[in-house]
Protein backbone atom coordinates (compact mmCIF):
# COMPACT_ATOMS: atom_id res chain seq x y z
CA UNK A 1 0.00 0.00 0.00
CA UNK A 2 0.98 3.59 -0.54
CA UNK A 3 2.65 2.72 -3.83
CA UNK A 4 1.18 4.19 -7.00
CA UNK A 5 0.05 1.77 -9.66
CA UNK A 6 -1.36 2.42 -13.12
CA UNK A 7 -4.89 1.05 -13.35
CA UNK A 8 -8.02 1.22 -15.47
CA UNK A 9 -10.99 2.82 -13.76
CA UNK A 10 -13.12 -0.34 -13.96
CA UNK A 11 -10.39 -2.48 -12.39
CA UNK A 12 -9.48 0.15 -9.82
CA UNK A 13 -13.09 0.29 -8.60
CA UNK A 14 -13.14 -3.50 -8.30
CA UNK A 15 -9.91 -3.52 -6.27
CA UNK A 16 -11.18 -0.64 -4.12
CA UNK A 17 -14.28 -2.67 -3.28
CA UNK A 18 -12.11 -5.58 -2.18
CA UNK A 19 -9.97 -3.21 -0.11
CA UNK A 20 -13.21 -1.96 1.48
CA UNK A 21 -13.98 -5.47 2.69
CA UNK A 22 -16.39 -6.44 -0.09
CA UNK A 23 -16.19 -10.16 -0.85
CA UNK A 24 -19.31 -10.64 -2.97
CA UNK A 25 -20.01 -9.61 -6.53
CA UNK A 26 -23.07 -10.47 -8.61
CA UNK A 27 -23.32 -9.15 -12.17
CA UNK A 28 -24.08 -9.67 -15.81
CA UNK A 29 -21.89 -8.71 -18.78
CA UNK A 30 -22.49 -5.40 -20.54
CA UNK A 31 -20.20 -2.92 -22.30
CA UNK A 32 -18.45 -0.68 -21.22
CA UNK A 33 -17.88 -2.09 -17.73
CA UNK A 34 -16.83 -5.69 -18.41
CA UNK A 35 -13.33 -5.16 -17.09
CA UNK A 36 -14.86 -4.76 -13.63
CA UNK A 37 -16.59 -8.17 -13.33
CA UNK A 38 -13.69 -9.81 -15.16
CA UNK A 39 -11.30 -8.43 -12.56
CA UNK A 40 -13.59 -9.60 -9.76
CA UNK A 41 -13.78 -13.10 -11.24
CA UNK A 42 -9.98 -13.35 -10.94
CA UNK A 43 -9.49 -11.50 -7.66
CA UNK A 44 -12.38 -12.52 -5.41
CA UNK A 45 -11.44 -16.23 -5.24
CA UNK A 46 -7.94 -15.15 -4.11
CA UNK A 47 -9.41 -13.45 -1.05
CA UNK A 48 -12.01 -16.10 -0.24
CA UNK A 49 -14.84 -14.17 -1.87
CA UNK A 50 -17.58 -15.08 -4.32
CA UNK A 51 -17.94 -13.91 -7.91
CA UNK A 52 -21.17 -14.99 -9.56
CA UNK A 53 -22.23 -14.25 -13.13
CA UNK A 54 -26.00 -14.19 -12.84
CA UNK A 55 -28.57 -15.19 -15.46
CA UNK A 56 -29.68 -11.56 -15.83
CA UNK A 57 -29.32 -8.14 -14.26
CA UNK A 58 -32.67 -8.70 -12.58
CA UNK A 59 -31.35 -11.81 -10.87
CA UNK A 60 -28.03 -10.14 -10.07
CA UNK A 61 -29.71 -7.27 -8.22
CA UNK A 62 -31.83 -9.71 -6.25
CA UNK A 63 -28.73 -11.73 -5.34
CA UNK A 64 -27.29 -8.44 -4.06
CA UNK A 65 -30.47 -8.01 -2.01
CA UNK A 66 -29.95 -11.49 -0.53
CA UNK A 67 -26.26 -11.03 0.20
CA UNK A 68 -26.78 -7.55 1.67
CA UNK A 69 -29.60 -8.83 3.87
CA UNK A 70 -27.34 -11.66 4.97
CA UNK A 71 -24.99 -9.00 6.32
CA UNK A 72 -22.21 -8.84 3.73
CA UNK A 73 -20.60 -5.94 1.89
CA UNK A 74 -21.65 -6.55 -1.70
CA UNK A 75 -21.07 -4.94 -5.10
CA UNK A 76 -22.72 -5.08 -8.49
CA UNK A 77 -21.88 -3.15 -11.62
CA UNK A 78 -23.52 -2.53 -14.96
CA UNK A 79 -24.18 0.06 -17.62
CA UNK A 80 -27.37 1.95 -18.43
CA UNK A 81 -29.70 -0.72 -19.96
CA UNK A 82 -28.52 -3.19 -17.34
CA UNK A 83 -29.11 -0.68 -14.56
CA UNK A 84 -32.71 -0.28 -15.73
CA UNK A 85 -33.14 -4.03 -15.17
CA UNK A 86 -31.44 -3.81 -11.79
CA UNK A 87 -33.88 -1.14 -10.66
CA UNK A 88 -36.25 -3.83 -9.38
CA UNK A 89 -33.72 -5.11 -6.90
CA UNK A 90 -32.47 -1.60 -6.10
CA UNK A 91 -35.96 -0.45 -5.10
CA UNK A 92 -36.31 -3.48 -2.80
CA UNK A 93 -32.84 -2.89 -1.36
CA UNK A 94 -33.77 0.73 -0.63
CA UNK A 95 -37.18 -0.30 0.74
CA UNK A 96 -35.73 -2.97 3.02
CA UNK A 97 -32.96 -0.54 4.07
CA UNK A 98 -29.99 -2.62 3.04
CA UNK A 99 -26.48 -1.39 2.32
CA UNK A 100 -25.10 -2.19 -1.13
CA UNK A 101 -22.93 -0.51 -3.74
CA UNK A 102 -23.94 -0.31 -7.40
CA UNK A 103 -21.69 0.94 -10.20
CA UNK A 104 -23.21 2.45 -13.36
CA UNK A 105 -20.76 3.09 -16.18
CA UNK A 106 -23.27 5.12 -18.16
CA UNK A 107 -23.66 4.78 -21.93
CA UNK A 108 -25.92 6.58 -24.37
CA UNK A 109 -29.64 5.79 -24.47
CA UNK A 110 -32.61 5.48 -24.48
CA UNK A 111 -33.24 1.85 -25.36
CA UNK A 112 -30.17 -0.03 -26.41
CA UNK A 113 -28.60 3.35 -27.26
CA UNK A 114 -24.87 3.05 -27.80
CA UNK A 115 -21.77 2.10 -25.89
CA UNK A 116 -20.03 5.47 -25.81
CA UNK A 117 -19.73 7.69 -22.75
CA UNK A 118 -22.83 9.43 -21.51
CA UNK A 119 -24.34 11.07 -18.46
CA UNK A 120 -27.92 10.51 -19.45
CA UNK A 121 -28.88 8.39 -16.42
CA UNK A 122 -28.66 11.36 -14.03
CA UNK A 123 -32.43 11.46 -13.50
CA UNK A 124 -32.60 7.69 -13.00
CA UNK A 125 -29.76 7.72 -10.50
CA UNK A 126 -30.67 10.76 -8.46
CA UNK A 127 -34.46 10.80 -8.49
CA UNK A 128 -35.06 7.22 -7.47
CA UNK A 129 -34.96 5.24 -10.69
CA UNK A 130 -37.03 2.32 -9.53
CA UNK A 131 -40.56 2.60 -8.16
CA UNK A 132 -41.42 4.20 -4.85
CA UNK A 133 -40.26 7.09 -2.73
CA UNK A 134 -36.57 6.47 -2.24
CA UNK A 135 -33.13 7.91 -2.91
CA UNK A 136 -29.70 6.51 -3.51
CA UNK A 137 -26.57 8.30 -2.47
CA UNK A 138 -24.99 8.97 -5.87
CA UNK A 139 -21.27 9.62 -6.18
CA UNK A 140 -19.60 10.77 -9.41
CA UNK A 141 -15.81 10.41 -9.59
CA UNK A 142 -13.85 12.37 -12.18
CA UNK A 143 -10.56 10.51 -11.93
CA UNK A 144 -9.47 6.95 -11.35
CA UNK A 145 -8.04 7.87 -7.94
CA UNK A 146 -11.31 9.49 -6.96
CA UNK A 147 -13.19 6.41 -8.20
CA UNK A 148 -11.09 4.36 -5.79
CA UNK A 149 -11.60 6.72 -2.86
CA UNK A 150 -15.34 7.10 -3.45
CA UNK A 151 -15.84 3.35 -3.84
CA UNK A 152 -14.26 2.76 -0.46
CA UNK A 153 -16.33 5.55 1.03
CA UNK A 154 -19.48 4.23 -0.66
CA UNK A 155 -19.36 1.07 1.44
CA UNK A 156 -19.03 3.14 4.61
CA UNK A 157 -21.94 5.40 3.64
CA UNK A 158 -24.07 2.39 2.66
CA UNK A 159 -23.49 0.77 6.05
CA UNK A 160 -23.93 4.04 7.96
CA UNK A 161 -27.38 4.72 6.51
CA UNK A 162 -28.39 1.16 5.56
CA UNK A 163 -28.98 2.52 2.06
CA UNK A 164 -27.74 1.63 -1.41
CA UNK A 165 -25.05 3.88 -2.88
CA UNK A 166 -24.49 4.29 -6.61
CA UNK A 167 -21.18 5.20 -8.24
CA UNK A 168 -21.77 6.77 -11.64
CA UNK A 169 -19.08 6.98 -14.27
CA UNK A 170 -18.87 6.47 -18.00
CA UNK A 171 -16.70 4.61 -20.49
CA UNK A 172 -13.94 7.19 -20.09
CA UNK A 173 -13.70 6.84 -16.32
CA UNK A 174 -13.99 3.07 -16.70
CA UNK A 175 -11.42 2.51 -19.44
CA UNK A 176 -8.92 5.27 -18.71
CA UNK A 177 -5.73 4.39 -16.86
CA UNK A 178 -4.34 6.70 -14.22
CA UNK A 179 -2.02 6.19 -11.27
CA UNK A 180 -3.84 5.14 -8.13
CA UNK A 181 -2.97 4.56 -4.54
CA UNK A 182 -4.98 2.40 -2.16
CA UNK A 183 -4.81 4.18 1.15
CA UNK A 184 -6.22 1.49 3.39
CA UNK A 185 -7.40 -2.08 3.47
CA UNK A 186 -10.25 -3.42 5.56
CA UNK A 187 -10.51 -7.02 6.70
CA UNK A 188 -14.20 -7.98 6.53
CA UNK A 189 -13.73 -9.85 9.82
CA UNK A 190 -13.06 -6.48 11.51
CA UNK A 191 -16.31 -4.88 10.35
CA UNK A 192 -18.95 -4.35 13.03
CA UNK A 193 -21.57 -7.09 13.16
CA UNK A 194 -24.97 -6.18 11.69
CA UNK A 195 -27.50 -7.27 14.30
CA UNK A 196 -30.38 -6.90 11.82
CA UNK A 197 -28.93 -9.34 9.28
CA UNK A 198 -30.32 -12.80 8.56
CA UNK A 199 -27.74 -15.38 9.54
CA UNK A 200 -29.93 -17.83 11.48
CA UNK A 201 -31.91 -16.81 14.57
CA UNK A 202 -29.51 -18.35 17.05
CA UNK A 203 -30.53 -17.38 20.57
CA UNK A 204 -32.36 -14.29 19.40
CA UNK A 205 -35.67 -13.20 17.89
CA UNK A 206 -35.89 -13.80 14.16
CA UNK A 207 -34.82 -11.09 11.74
CA UNK A 208 -36.90 -10.22 8.70
CA UNK A 209 -35.71 -8.38 5.59
CA UNK A 210 -38.80 -6.88 4.06
CA UNK A 211 -40.29 -3.94 2.18
CA UNK A 212 -43.96 -4.92 2.44
CA UNK A 213 -46.23 -2.78 4.61
CA UNK A 214 -49.85 -3.57 3.75
CA UNK A 215 -51.24 -1.16 6.32
CA UNK A 216 -50.99 2.33 4.74
CA UNK A 217 -50.33 3.91 8.13
CA UNK A 218 -47.36 1.61 8.59
CA UNK A 219 -46.08 2.30 5.08
CA UNK A 220 -46.37 6.04 5.60
CA UNK A 221 -44.41 5.70 8.81
CA UNK A 222 -41.77 3.76 6.91
CA UNK A 223 -41.69 6.37 4.11
CA UNK A 224 -41.23 9.17 6.66
CA UNK A 225 -38.43 7.24 8.32
CA UNK A 226 -36.73 6.91 4.94
CA UNK A 227 -37.26 10.61 4.27
CA UNK A 228 -35.66 11.52 7.58
CA UNK A 229 -32.67 9.44 6.51
CA UNK A 230 -32.44 11.27 3.16
CA UNK A 231 -32.68 14.61 4.98
CA UNK A 232 -29.78 13.57 7.17
CA UNK A 233 -27.80 12.67 4.05
CA UNK A 234 -28.52 16.14 2.67
CA UNK A 235 -27.07 17.56 5.86
CA UNK A 236 -23.98 15.35 6.12
CA UNK A 237 -23.06 13.75 2.83
CA UNK A 238 -22.82 16.64 0.37
CA UNK A 239 -19.55 16.52 -1.54
CA UNK A 240 -18.25 18.94 -4.15
CA UNK A 241 -15.12 20.67 -5.38
CA UNK A 242 -14.70 24.22 -6.56
CA UNK A 243 -12.00 25.65 -8.84
CA UNK A 244 -11.03 29.29 -9.42
CA UNK A 245 -14.25 30.58 -7.89
CA UNK A 246 -12.57 33.59 -6.19
CA UNK A 247 -12.72 35.85 -9.22
CA UNK A 248 -15.10 33.88 -11.42
CA UNK A 249 -17.71 35.81 -13.36
CA UNK A 250 -19.15 32.73 -14.99
CA UNK A 251 -19.27 29.36 -13.33
CA UNK A 252 -19.43 26.01 -15.07
CA UNK A 253 -21.28 23.27 -13.21
CA UNK A 254 -20.22 19.83 -14.42
CA UNK A 255 -19.50 16.42 -12.92
CA UNK A 256 -17.43 13.33 -13.71
CA UNK A 257 -15.62 13.24 -17.04
CA UNK A 258 -17.31 16.45 -18.18
CA UNK A 259 -15.82 18.32 -15.24
CA UNK A 260 -12.32 17.24 -16.37
CA UNK A 261 -13.02 18.61 -19.83
CA UNK A 262 -14.43 21.78 -18.26
CA UNK A 263 -11.09 22.29 -16.47
CA UNK A 264 -9.36 22.35 -19.85
CA UNK A 265 -12.01 24.78 -21.11
CA UNK A 266 -11.40 27.05 -18.12
CA UNK A 267 -7.67 27.16 -18.95
CA UNK A 268 -8.48 28.20 -22.52
CA UNK A 269 -11.11 30.75 -21.44
CA UNK A 270 -8.75 32.34 -18.92
CA UNK A 271 -6.09 32.63 -21.64
CA UNK A 272 -8.67 34.76 -23.44
CA UNK A 273 -9.17 36.79 -20.25
CA UNK A 274 -12.59 35.37 -19.40
CA UNK A 275 -12.87 34.63 -15.69
CA UNK A 276 -14.48 31.22 -15.45
CA UNK A 277 -14.72 28.99 -12.39
CA UNK A 278 -16.03 25.50 -11.74
CA UNK A 279 -18.36 23.85 -9.27
CA UNK A 280 -18.04 20.11 -9.55
CA UNK A 281 -20.73 18.13 -7.71
CA UNK A 282 -19.15 14.92 -6.41
CA UNK A 283 -22.32 13.76 -4.69
CA UNK A 284 -25.20 14.06 -7.18
CA UNK A 285 -27.55 13.05 -4.41
CA UNK A 286 -27.39 14.80 -2.02
CA UNK A 287 -26.92 17.64 -4.49
CA UNK A 288 -24.57 20.49 -3.48
CA UNK A 289 -27.31 23.10 -3.71
CA UNK A 290 -25.95 25.42 -0.99
CA UNK A 291 -22.65 26.19 -2.71
CA UNK A 292 -24.52 26.83 -5.97
CA UNK A 293 -27.01 29.11 -4.21
CA UNK A 294 -24.09 30.99 -2.63
CA UNK A 295 -22.36 31.32 -5.99
CA UNK A 296 -25.58 32.76 -7.44
CA UNK A 297 -24.99 35.77 -5.22
CA UNK A 298 -21.53 36.39 -6.70
CA UNK A 299 -21.20 35.32 -10.32
CA UNK A 300 -22.97 36.66 -13.41
CA UNK A 301 -24.18 33.42 -14.87
CA UNK A 302 -23.98 29.65 -14.85
CA UNK A 303 -23.20 27.22 -17.62
CA UNK A 304 -24.15 23.61 -16.97
CA UNK A 305 -22.26 21.15 -19.17
CA UNK A 306 -23.41 17.54 -19.37
CA UNK A 307 -23.25 14.56 -21.68
CA UNK A 308 -27.05 14.55 -21.80
CA UNK A 309 -29.84 16.65 -23.25
CA UNK A 310 -30.09 18.49 -19.94
CA UNK A 311 -30.72 16.70 -16.67
CA UNK A 312 -28.55 18.05 -13.84
CA UNK A 313 -29.32 21.54 -15.18
CA UNK A 314 -32.76 21.24 -13.53
CA UNK A 315 -31.18 20.82 -10.10
CA UNK A 316 -28.83 23.73 -10.77
CA UNK A 317 -31.80 25.92 -11.72
CA UNK A 318 -33.58 24.94 -8.51
CA UNK A 319 -30.51 25.88 -6.48
CA UNK A 320 -29.97 29.17 -8.36
CA UNK A 321 -33.69 29.84 -7.87
CA UNK A 322 -34.00 32.44 -10.60
CA UNK A 323 -31.30 34.73 -9.23
CA UNK A 324 -29.08 34.36 -12.31
CA UNK A 325 -29.31 32.99 -15.79
CA UNK A 326 -28.48 29.28 -16.08
CA UNK A 327 -27.28 28.21 -19.53
CA UNK A 328 -26.87 24.68 -20.74
CA UNK A 329 -24.50 22.97 -23.12
CA UNK A 330 -24.81 19.26 -23.73
CA UNK A 331 -23.59 16.60 -26.09
CA UNK A 332 -25.48 13.34 -26.29
CA UNK A 333 -25.47 9.89 -27.77
CA UNK A 334 -21.88 9.19 -26.76
CA UNK A 335 -20.40 12.38 -28.19
CA UNK A 336 -17.96 13.98 -25.77
CA UNK A 337 -17.80 17.79 -25.62
CA UNK A 338 -14.40 19.28 -26.39
CA UNK A 339 -12.88 22.12 -24.35
CA UNK A 340 -12.99 24.33 -27.48
CA UNK A 341 -16.74 23.79 -27.87
CA UNK A 342 -17.30 24.76 -24.24
CA UNK A 343 -15.22 27.93 -24.69
CA UNK A 344 -17.25 28.82 -27.78
CA UNK A 345 -20.36 28.46 -25.68
CA UNK A 346 -18.89 30.68 -22.96
CA UNK A 347 -18.08 33.36 -25.52
CA UNK A 348 -21.53 33.06 -27.10
CA UNK A 349 -23.39 33.65 -23.86
CA UNK A 350 -21.02 36.46 -22.97
CA UNK A 351 -20.69 35.14 -19.46
CA UNK A 352 -17.91 37.50 -18.58
CA UNK A 353 -19.60 40.65 -19.74
CA UNK A 354 -21.43 42.55 -17.04
Amino acid at each position, binding site marked *: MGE*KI*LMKGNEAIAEAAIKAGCRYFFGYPIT*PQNALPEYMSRRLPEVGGVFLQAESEVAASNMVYGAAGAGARVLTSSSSPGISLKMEGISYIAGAELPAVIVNMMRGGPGLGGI*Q*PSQSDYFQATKGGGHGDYRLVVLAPSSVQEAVDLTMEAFEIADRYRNPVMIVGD*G*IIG*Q*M*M*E*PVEFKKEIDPADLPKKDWATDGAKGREKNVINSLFLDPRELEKHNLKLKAKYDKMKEKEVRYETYKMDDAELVIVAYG*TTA*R*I*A*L*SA*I*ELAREKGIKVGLIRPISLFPFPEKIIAEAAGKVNSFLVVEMSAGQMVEDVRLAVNGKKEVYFYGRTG*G*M*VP*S*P*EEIVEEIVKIGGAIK
Partner: protein
Amino acid sequence: MKEEIIMAGFGGQGVMSMGKLLAYAGMKEGDEVSWMPSYGPEMRGGTANCTVIISSEKIPSPLSSRPDTVMVMNLPSLEKFAPMVKEGGTILINSSLIAKEVERDDIEVIKVPANEIANELGNSRVANMVMLGAYLARKNIVKLDTVKKSLKDVLPERRHDLIPINEEALDRGAALVK
Protein backbone atom coordinates in the same frame (compact mmCIF):
# COMPACT_ATOMS: atom_id res chain seq x y z
CA MET B 1 5.46 20.71 -18.45
CA LYS B 2 2.49 19.11 -20.16
CA GLU B 3 2.70 16.83 -23.16
CA GLU B 4 -0.30 15.36 -24.97
CA ILE B 5 0.49 12.41 -27.22
CA ILE B 6 -1.71 10.37 -29.52
CA MET B 7 -0.48 7.00 -30.79
CA ALA B 8 -2.36 5.31 -33.61
CA GLY B 9 -2.13 2.34 -35.94
CA PHE B 10 -3.75 -0.90 -36.98
CA GLY B 11 -4.99 -3.17 -34.23
CA GLY B 12 -2.07 -5.48 -33.46
CA GLN B 13 0.66 -2.90 -34.09
CA GLY B 14 1.01 -2.44 -30.36
CA VAL B 15 -0.08 1.17 -30.03
CA MET B 16 -2.01 0.51 -26.83
CA SER B 17 0.94 -1.13 -25.14
CA MET B 18 3.44 1.55 -26.22
CA GLY B 19 1.05 4.08 -24.68
CA LYS B 20 0.79 2.12 -21.46
CA LEU B 21 4.57 1.77 -21.27
CA LEU B 22 5.05 5.50 -21.77
CA ALA B 23 2.40 6.39 -19.18
CA TYR B 24 3.83 3.91 -16.71
CA ALA B 25 7.35 5.32 -17.11
CA GLY B 26 5.99 8.85 -16.67
CA MET B 27 4.35 7.77 -13.43
CA LYS B 28 7.63 6.22 -12.25
CA GLU B 29 9.33 9.58 -12.80
CA GLY B 30 6.76 11.21 -10.54
CA ASP B 31 4.66 12.90 -13.19
CA GLU B 32 0.89 12.98 -13.46
CA VAL B 33 -0.18 10.67 -16.28
CA SER B 34 -3.31 9.44 -18.01
CA TRP B 35 -3.84 6.78 -20.68
CA MET B 36 -7.05 6.71 -22.62
CA PRO B 37 -7.81 4.02 -25.21
CA SER B 38 -9.64 4.86 -28.42
CA TYR B 39 -13.18 5.16 -27.50
CA GLY B 40 -15.71 6.55 -29.86
CA PRO B 41 -16.55 6.69 -33.56
CA GLU B 42 -12.86 6.85 -34.44
CA MET B 43 -12.61 3.16 -33.56
CA ARG B 44 -14.15 2.42 -36.94
CA GLY B 45 -11.90 2.12 -39.96
CA GLY B 46 -9.46 -0.33 -38.47
CA THR B 47 -7.40 2.09 -36.45
CA ALA B 48 -6.70 1.76 -32.77
CA ASN B 49 -5.35 4.68 -30.85
CA CYS B 50 -4.65 5.90 -27.40
CA THR B 51 -4.02 9.24 -25.81
CA VAL B 52 -1.31 9.65 -23.22
CA ILE B 53 -0.92 12.84 -21.25
CA ILE B 54 2.13 13.47 -19.10
CA SER B 55 2.21 16.56 -16.97
CA SER B 56 3.92 18.03 -13.95
CA GLU B 57 0.49 19.19 -12.81
CA LYS B 58 -2.92 17.59 -12.37
CA ILE B 59 -4.34 16.59 -15.75
CA PRO B 60 -7.64 18.23 -16.67
CA SER B 61 -9.21 16.49 -19.68
CA PRO B 62 -7.75 13.04 -20.39
CA LEU B 63 -8.71 13.51 -24.05
CA SER B 64 -6.69 15.57 -26.51
CA SER B 65 -8.02 17.58 -29.41
CA ARG B 66 -4.70 19.42 -30.11
CA PRO B 67 -1.93 16.91 -29.31
CA ASP B 68 1.69 18.06 -28.98
CA THR B 69 2.89 14.85 -30.57
CA VAL B 70 1.32 12.21 -32.78
CA MET B 71 2.90 8.85 -33.64
CA VAL B 72 1.28 7.10 -36.58
CA MET B 73 2.00 3.54 -37.53
CA ASN B 74 -0.19 3.34 -40.67
CA LEU B 75 -1.72 5.52 -43.39
CA PRO B 76 -5.32 5.84 -42.08
CA SER B 77 -3.88 7.12 -38.81
CA LEU B 78 -1.76 9.68 -40.62
CA GLU B 79 -4.78 11.00 -42.46
CA LYS B 80 -6.84 11.16 -39.33
CA PHE B 81 -4.38 12.60 -36.85
CA ALA B 82 -1.93 14.76 -38.85
CA PRO B 83 -4.44 17.65 -39.06
CA MET B 84 -4.91 17.57 -35.28
CA VAL B 85 -1.28 18.16 -34.29
CA LYS B 86 -0.76 21.44 -32.48
CA GLU B 87 1.05 24.14 -34.44
CA GLY B 88 4.76 23.66 -33.79
CA GLY B 89 4.11 20.10 -32.68
CA THR B 90 5.68 16.89 -33.89
CA ILE B 91 4.49 13.95 -35.94
CA LEU B 92 6.42 10.68 -36.09
CA ILE B 93 5.61 8.57 -39.12
CA ASN B 94 6.22 4.88 -39.64
CA SER B 95 7.87 5.37 -43.04
CA SER B 96 8.07 1.62 -43.59
CA LEU B 97 4.33 1.57 -44.22
CA ILE B 98 3.53 5.20 -45.08
CA ALA B 99 4.80 6.67 -48.34
CA LYS B 100 2.58 9.73 -48.21
CA GLU B 101 4.05 13.10 -47.22
CA VAL B 102 2.56 15.28 -44.52
CA GLU B 103 0.89 18.28 -46.10
CA ARG B 104 1.66 20.74 -43.33
CA ASP B 105 4.67 23.01 -42.92
CA ASP B 106 3.89 24.21 -39.40
CA ILE B 107 4.83 20.94 -37.69
CA GLU B 108 7.96 18.88 -37.39
CA VAL B 109 7.92 15.57 -39.28
CA ILE B 110 10.14 12.67 -38.23
CA LYS B 111 10.25 9.58 -40.42
CA VAL B 112 10.93 6.33 -38.64
CA PRO B 113 11.35 3.13 -40.69
CA ALA B 114 9.95 1.21 -37.75
CA ASN B 115 9.05 -2.06 -39.47
CA GLU B 116 12.34 -2.29 -41.38
CA ILE B 117 14.34 -1.90 -38.19
CA ALA B 118 12.10 -4.30 -36.30
CA ASN B 119 12.54 -6.87 -39.07
CA GLU B 120 16.31 -6.40 -38.92
CA LEU B 121 16.06 -7.22 -35.24
CA GLY B 122 14.11 -10.35 -36.13
CA ASN B 123 10.66 -9.48 -34.78
CA SER B 124 8.28 -7.17 -36.64
CA ARG B 125 6.20 -6.79 -33.50
CA VAL B 126 8.76 -4.48 -31.88
CA ALA B 127 8.13 -1.77 -34.51
CA ASN B 128 6.16 0.07 -31.84
CA MET B 129 9.26 0.19 -29.60
CA VAL B 130 11.39 1.57 -32.46
CA MET B 131 8.83 4.34 -32.82
CA LEU B 132 8.72 4.98 -29.07
CA GLY B 133 12.52 5.06 -28.92
CA ALA B 134 12.60 7.75 -31.61
CA TYR B 135 10.00 9.77 -29.73
CA LEU B 136 11.89 9.53 -26.45
CA ALA B 137 15.10 10.72 -28.09
CA ARG B 138 13.32 13.67 -29.72
CA LYS B 139 11.30 14.84 -26.73
CA ASN B 140 12.83 14.82 -23.33
CA ILE B 141 9.58 14.03 -21.50
CA VAL B 142 10.49 10.64 -20.04
CA LYS B 143 13.97 9.11 -19.87
CA LEU B 144 14.72 6.19 -22.20
CA ASP B 145 16.24 4.40 -19.24
CA THR B 146 13.02 4.66 -17.21
CA VAL B 147 11.04 3.24 -20.11
CA LYS B 148 13.43 0.30 -20.36
CA LYS B 149 13.18 -0.35 -16.65
CA SER B 150 9.38 -0.26 -16.89
CA LEU B 151 9.26 -3.08 -19.44
CA LYS B 152 9.33 -5.76 -16.79
CA ASP B 153 6.35 -4.20 -14.99
CA VAL B 154 4.23 -3.58 -18.07
CA LEU B 155 4.94 -6.77 -20.02
CA PRO B 156 3.22 -9.86 -18.65
CA GLU B 157 5.68 -12.30 -17.11
CA ARG B 158 5.32 -14.84 -19.91
CA ARG B 159 6.71 -12.18 -22.28
CA HIS B 160 9.74 -11.29 -20.18
CA ASP B 161 11.99 -13.19 -22.58
CA LEU B 162 11.20 -10.39 -25.06
CA ILE B 163 12.62 -7.64 -22.83
CA PRO B 164 16.10 -7.64 -24.49
CA ILE B 165 14.71 -7.28 -28.02
CA ASN B 166 12.33 -4.54 -26.86
CA GLU B 167 15.26 -2.67 -25.30
CA GLU B 168 17.25 -3.04 -28.47
CA ALA B 169 14.32 -1.72 -30.53
CA LEU B 170 14.03 1.30 -28.22
CA ASP B 171 17.77 1.99 -28.66
CA ARG B 172 17.62 1.65 -32.44
CA GLY B 173 14.69 4.07 -32.60
CA ALA B 174 16.49 6.54 -30.36
CA ALA B 175 19.69 6.29 -32.47
CA LEU B 176 17.73 7.42 -35.53
CA VAL B 177 16.96 10.80 -34.04
CA LYS B 178 20.24 11.51 -32.27
